[in-house]
């Protein structure tokens, strides 16, 4: 448990991605089975214990500490597990339990025995191990490293023999403590066979199409689809079960029970998860409501009904269609859809076009709420995991722009932690009493060069008018040209409007703040056209 506690602590404080991978790799390389397997499960979020819950920890704290002091300490620290770990009396000296001992006991021990077992562990451990133990129990690890990083670390451990995507393909067929996986990684065993398990297949990704790519593009060799503004999902249904995976291999099945319910087939499909009402796609903000809930209530399911717009088929039954060219897969997808006709799913139509000029017009016309632009897919492209060059392109419509005034600035993270690199910007409106006021409409931190960042950082420091913790309010005198993909009505923002993907296009030091745009201008950009109309 000491090594795992140390790993957790280091991951929390280490900002760099490569340093995190190095820490994970060192942990997996130096720890024995099955400890490291349970450590891997903890990092990837695959561990949960039915009987051990935060209430258990509260009860233990109540038995061992003064309730008044506990209350003040909890107020100060702000985290239950950490508070109990830090103020647990005594501790250390003895040998803390091994990771495997902890995980196995938490799974197997009768609920009534747990308080005694956990208290004995805490007595034997120092504060760092106590935090790790209690975080394991409460399920609030927040390790600061994604499951993907753990797989990259495992791939590095295999010295390049096994790609992270290969691990991804077997991952969801495996269970802790992953002895077969480590044997494979270390060259002591074969690649584990997931058999009928509903495993994730690394998706094929598209390159953004830049103006410079356009000239060399043989458009006749491509098919076009709308690029939907939802989240990409992979629907997997096998004899072994049903899963909905995000693009990053997270299992989001529980959040979309109505989709899971509709997966009465065997196969693997690729599509866009959207909120769809009466065949009309709702803005991304509506989908966001669903994404915020791990398990939606009945009201959520009714008000924000989810659907999947399918655009590819990877497996029909057990048949792997990925080697087939796009055109053939498309045909198979249409045949499959006609045959199965699953509820809550439809097909993303192919967009007909004759020439490049035609496509450009279509793309520019794509201003519907849920369409970001076009996808161009080579008619002869097999389904290749990762981001192969030249096969799939995403061609977003040109962004909209507004000139906005910087209102607040906040420090960035990691390499940018010494810079004021996140800017809240606003637009003018009438304050109701005949005066002009600025109202914040969004926040942006990308799109600028290092030189521009240095300029903005210096500017913020020299024009600060107030401080609120890490946030500085600045003089309302600097104008930024903000690019964004879409504007959507939002009740959660003071201005009533939310921007999709705002980023800084240019610094407009030449422009007086009074000449920045007004909120009305932005509201005219709000996409109200139903998605269907664009087709």
């Amino acid at each position, binding site marked *: 448990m000491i090594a795992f506690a140390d790993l957790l*602590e280091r991951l*929390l*404080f*280490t*900002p760099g991605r490569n340093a995190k991978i190095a820490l994970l790799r060192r942990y997996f390389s130096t720890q024995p089975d099955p400890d490291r397997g349970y450590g891997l499960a903890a990092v990837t979020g695959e561990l949960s214990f039915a009987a051990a819950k935060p209430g258990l920890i509260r009860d233990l704290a109540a038995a061992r*500490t*003064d309730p*008044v*002091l506990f209350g*003040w*300490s909890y107020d*100060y*620290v*702000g*985290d239950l597990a*950490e*508070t109990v770990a*830090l*103020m647990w009396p005594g501790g250390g000296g003895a040998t803390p339990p091994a990771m495997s001992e902890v995980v196995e006991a938490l799974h197997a021990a009768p609920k009534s025995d747990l308080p005694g077992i956990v208290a004995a562990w805490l007595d034997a451990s*120092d*504060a760092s191990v106590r*935090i790790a133990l209690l975080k394991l129990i409460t399920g609030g690890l927040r390790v600061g490293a994604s499951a993907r990083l753990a797989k990259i670390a495992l791939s590095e451990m295999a010295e390049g023999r096994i790609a992270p995507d290969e691990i991804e393909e077997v991952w969801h067929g495996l269970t802790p403590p992953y002895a077969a996986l480590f044997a494979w990684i270390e060259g002591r065993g074969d690649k584990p066979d997931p058999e009928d398990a509903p495993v994730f297949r690394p998706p094929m990704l598209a390159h953004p199409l830049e103006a410079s790519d356009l000239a060399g593009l043989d458009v006749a060799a491509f098919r076009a689809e709308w690029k939907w503004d939802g989240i990409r999902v992979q629907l997997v249904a096998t004899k072994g079960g049903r899963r909905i995976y995000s693009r990053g291999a997270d299992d989001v099945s529980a959040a979309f029970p109505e989709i899971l319910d509709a997966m009465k087939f065997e196969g693997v499909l690729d599509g866009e998860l959207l909120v769809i009402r009466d065949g009309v796609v709702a803005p991304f903000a509506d989908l966001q409501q669903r994404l915020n809930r791990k398990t939606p209530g009945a009201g959520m399911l009714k008000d924000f009904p989810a659907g999947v717009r399918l655009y590819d088929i990877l497996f029909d039954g057990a048949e792997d269609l990925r080697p087939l060219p796009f055109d053939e897969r498309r045909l198979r997808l249409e045949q499959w859809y006609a045959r199965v006709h699953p509820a809550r799913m439809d097909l993303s139509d192919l967009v007909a076009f004759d020439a490049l000029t035609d496509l450009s017009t279509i793309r520019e016309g794509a201003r519907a709420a849920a369409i970001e632009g076009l996808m161009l897919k080579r008619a002869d492209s097999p389904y290749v995991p990762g981001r192969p060059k030249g096969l799939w392109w995403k061609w977003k419509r040109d962004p909209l722009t507004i000139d906005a005034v910087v209102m607040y600035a906040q*420090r960035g*993270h990691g390499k940018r*932690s*010494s810079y004021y690199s996140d800017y809240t910007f606003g637009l003018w409106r009438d304050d109701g009493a005949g005066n002009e006021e600025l109202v914040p409409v969004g926040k942006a931190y990308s799109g600028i060069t290092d030189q521009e960042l240095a300029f903005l950082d210096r500017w913020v420091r020299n024009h600060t008018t107030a*401080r609120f*913790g*890490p946030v500085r309010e600045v003089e309302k005198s600097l104008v930024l040209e903000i690019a964004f993909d879409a504007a959507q009505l939002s009740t959660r923002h003071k201005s009533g409007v939310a921007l999709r993907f705002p980023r800084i296009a240019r610094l407009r030091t030449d422009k007086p703040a009074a000449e920045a745009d007004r909120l009305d201008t932005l509201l005219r950009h709000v996409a109200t056209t139903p998605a269907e109309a664009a087709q």
Partner: protein
Amino acid sequence: MTPHPESWLCVRPEGLFCRPGAFYVDPLRPVERAVVTHAHSDHARPGHGAVLASPETLALMRARMGEDRAGESQQALGWGAAITIGEVRVWLQPAGHVLGSAQVAMEWRGSRAVVSGDYKRRPDPTCAAFVPIPCDVFVTEATFGLPVFCHPSDAHEIDRLLASLSLFPERTHVIGCYSIGKCQRLIALLRRAGWNAPIFLHGALAAPCREYERLGVPLGDLRPATVADGESLKGAVVLAPPSAITERWARRLADPVVSLASGWMRVRQRAKSRGVELPLVISDHADWQELNDTIDEVGAPEVWVTHGNEEALIHAVGQRGIVGRALRLVGYGEEQDDVATTDR
């Protein structure tokens, strides 16, 4: 019958006032007569008339604020030597906080009060160890007055620093620390652990280090960090004030491991929100257990708390039958707040 200390020690806007001696202890505003426990800026303020303190505190005050602002007249008092001010017998004993830090013991008509100033109980190679003085009223700090604060041993924390230095031999380790006390203690602890390489200093730390050496605390090879080239800083230890480590000043360093040496680093989100990669729990204050043990050791039936988390400490001593009282002296602990807030 001996008078209760409340009848002769009171809180005024200027600070804690000893009426029969007509002097203040660590006054927060300029006064005629001041007894100063230690040289930190929140306790030793400029512009007093007569200042009484340990010789080391006076020297550090002069070095920090300049000869003319450290009191119009200065009187040095050695450990344990008693003098009489007005009707009050006054003597100093080490508080173990930083070099020269003192507890002020005061006795009037058989009633004894001790103002501890800031203090710690761990051995510190750069200053004399805390000496407990039995008394009727013990005036204590409570900077780390919550049971979540339990400082690990210095050796454990220095080992973590050395392990990080060997794990990242190419990266500069920049450690945030206060200019008086923590900085020199870290250097001394590193030297004891066998770190003989040059240690590089932010400009603000150079003068206090020189003063420590002049007062007999050897610190080894110290060099300015500001003129050192990036190459020589690879794998080096750089010390800087806490406010500088995530500031523009630190951008010159090679892929730095940002560290901060403070008791606050015990709480992970405190460290995380400061962008600290290697938090070192090294404190010049007593932790929760040490505050409580010290109070029991001096045996005072009554404890006054100057600053910090006073409610918790008063609650805890109350359960042992000791009367606790919060003095709520506003202005102490600002050096600690420098760690607590993001940007000063």
